[in-house]
């Protein structure tokens, strides 16, 4: 046991030295005050222990004085280290320094120190008690301060601070135990075990290995994942900063984080940023800057890697926000243009109606007053026909401009029921038209007025342009991958393939006489597109073959299939 204790004593000395070297290296690299005090603390400890080992009990008196100074300096240096995270009240330092200097002076007077195991005189015992009290006071202050400093910190910073708090406590205990001068092997071994573990704790907490950093960051990384999900719903650059920066702070254990666009606009700042940032991560259009917290005095390789991942996320979110913003603006512009156009068409149509109604009214009055027989009767009739045609044009234009407007709520529209009424109306205008429905037509979830317009126009169109006295219009449905296809076929003259697309243009007509306004099919196309479908003519051997595709979302499936004639 005694040998083991002696071996551990040497191991502890080496660990003190290693910790001092680590502290010094950090200090040289980053100039952080904490590493300077850590290096000093452990260099002092290493020196005290090594001198004890090398010089043995036969020491010159000046070396004894130095040993006392070293032992008294250790808790002072540790207090300095703790103060770098958050300072103690001002009166602390003169009191602590005075007490330390006093102890060293007292110790110097008492030198040469008794060898290990040698009985102590009463003066010496009193001195040791004073020294132990000094240790206890300072170690307790350090422990409490480091423990408290961890409160409210991200997991990594909190664990580091608290590990150091525990280490300070254990080291204090070890030194107090040493102060008793108990030379039993078990006590000596216990002291060395405490020393070794305490130093390992300090080393781990101060220069935390990557594996531990990663493990201690798990909670924050989970949060980051949540932030990433939230970021995918963000629509502006400032919102990106608002969502991202608090998480950057937490995950990196930073005092502040700032996202600045390349043009210098600060998109967001979270926390208190002063001095130069500890980490500066450039993105495509912005830069992410992070200030280390006083509790994690600098950023290591791990933080830099994590920071780069955060940057990537921020970059994606910014690019996404930018695209969304652009898309939103473009859509608003289109919507505005559409609204203006609709308003224009509407008011133009409305204002055109007024003089036309007056013109028609006077033509009626003229007819009532009695126009002399002959050419004048014909002229009045033609004027009336033209005015009526213009009225029809205006009405159709008005309908066309209304398709996109949401003036009637969608409803369950039974095409099967509707087709009977529409066929009846069409047959009144075009006698000799028979409409045959093959199978059951779907029910639609749509604006009933528009569906009626669509059905009326396509059947009207088939009847009007068949070029025959008697026309049969056959309507059936074919299921497709995307939904339903409505087929409207007639046995008329058909439409030449080269005109299949043209006829859907506004004011496009294939015949000039007695035709419609050339708006009917354009209206049909707008209505089907509004339903999410499409309309087109397909090549056919007999008559015109019109296809209307309707997406599944617009239809309510039908059940039965029967063939019947809806109008005799």
């Amino acid at each position, binding site marked *: 046991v005694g040998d083991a204790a002696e071996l551990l004593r040497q191991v502890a000395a080496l660990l003190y030295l290693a910790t001092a070297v680590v502290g010094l290296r950090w200090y040289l690299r980053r100039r952080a005050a904490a590493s300077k005090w850590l290096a000093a603390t452990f260099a002092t400890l290493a020196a005290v222990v090594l001198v004890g080992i090398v010089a043995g009990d036969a020491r010159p008196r000046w070396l004894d004085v130095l040993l006392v100074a070293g032992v008294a300096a250790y808790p002072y240096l540790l207090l300095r280290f703790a103060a770098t995270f958050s300072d103690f009240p001002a009166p602390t330092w003169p009191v602590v320094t005075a007490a330390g200097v006093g102890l060293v002076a007292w110790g110097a007077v008492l030198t040469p120190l008794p060898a290990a195991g040698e009985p102590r005189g009463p003066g010496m015992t009193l001195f040791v008690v004073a020294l132990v009290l000094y240790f206890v006071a300072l170690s307790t202050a350090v422990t409490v301060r480091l423990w408290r400093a961890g409160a409210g910190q991200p997991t990594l910073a909190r664990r580091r601070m608290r590990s150091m708090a525990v280490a300070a406590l254990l080291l204090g205990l070890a030194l107090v135990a040493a102060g008793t001068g108990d030379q039993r092997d078990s006590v000596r071994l216990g002291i060395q075990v405490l020393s070794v573990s305490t130093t390992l704790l300090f080393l781990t907490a101060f220069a935390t290995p990557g594996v531990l950093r990663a493990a201690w960051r798990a909670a924050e990384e989970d949060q980051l994942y949540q932030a990433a999900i939230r970021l995918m719903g963000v629509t502006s650059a400032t919102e990106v900063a608002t969502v991202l920066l608090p998480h950057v702070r937490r995950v990196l254990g930073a005092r502040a984080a700032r996202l600045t666009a390349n043009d210098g606009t600060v998109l967001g700042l979270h926390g208190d940023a002063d001095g130069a940032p500890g980490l500066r991560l450039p993105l495509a259009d912005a830069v992410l800057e992070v200030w280390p917290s006083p509790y994690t005095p600098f950023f290591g390789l791990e933080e830099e890697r994590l920071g780069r991942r955060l940057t990537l996320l921020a970059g994606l979110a910014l690019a996404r926000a930018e695209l969304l913003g652009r898309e939103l603006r473009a859509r608003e512009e289109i919507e505005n243009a559409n609204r203006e156009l609709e308003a224009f068409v509407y008011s133009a149509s409305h204002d055109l109606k007024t003089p036309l*109604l007056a013109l028609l009214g006077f033509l009626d009055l003229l007819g009532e007053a009695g126009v002399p027989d002959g050419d004048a009767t014909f002229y009045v009739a033609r004027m009336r026909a033209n005015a009526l045609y213009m009225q029809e044009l205006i009405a159709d234009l008005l309908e066309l401009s209304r398709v996109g407007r949401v003036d009637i709520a969608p409803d369950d529209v039974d095409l099967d029921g509707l087709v009977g009424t529409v066929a009846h109306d069409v047959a009144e205008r075009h006698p000799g038209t028979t409409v045959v429905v093959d199978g059951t037509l779907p029910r639609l979830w749509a604006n009933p007025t528009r569906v009626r317009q669509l059905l009326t126009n396509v059947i009207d169109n088939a009847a009007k342009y068949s070029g025959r006295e008697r026309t049969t219009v056959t309507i059936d449905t074919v299921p497709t991958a995307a939904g339903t296809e409505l087929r409207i076929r007639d046995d008329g003259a058909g439409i030449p393939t080269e005109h299949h697309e043209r006829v859907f243009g506004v004011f496009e007509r294939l015949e000039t006489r007695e035709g419609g306004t050339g708006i009917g099919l354009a209206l049909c196309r707008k209505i089907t597109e509004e339903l999410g479908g499409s309309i087109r003519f397909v090549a056919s051997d007999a008559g015109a073959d019109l296809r209307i595709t309707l997406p599944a979302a617009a239809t309510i499936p039908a059940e039965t299939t029967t063939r019947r004639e809806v109008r005799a």
Partner: protein
Amino acid sequence: VTRPLRVLVAEDDPDHRFFIRRALEDIEDVSVEVVTVEDGAEALDLVHRRGAYADQPAPDLILLDLRMPRRSGLEVLDELKSDPTLRTIPVSILSSSDRAEDVLAAYRLGGNAYLRKRGLRELRADLGGAMRFWGQIVVLPTGPA
């Protein structure tokens, strides 16, 4: 002998005013006294008996065009129906618009009917029907306005 039905017609288009006046006066079985104004502001002056209309009696019924200069038909309707005294006068819109929003807005503001301007023949039939309804079928409020 009952007095004729006093109808205020607010219409900015002179030709339409002419047709409406004629259609109203030509109704054989209902006696109608037509007063016309050219815009919404004049219509309000008349019902409030302001300015040139200080000694005009209150109309029994108002026919209101929607698109008029100065004050639109809907503005006039809103003001009339917000007034505790004037709101008792039935107001019918007579417009060439058959826009669902216009119809809805008119009824929402408390309009009593919405007639569409179509051809001359339809105008005669519609106004004949309306005057028979307001002048013979329904009972209108009487007493101090």
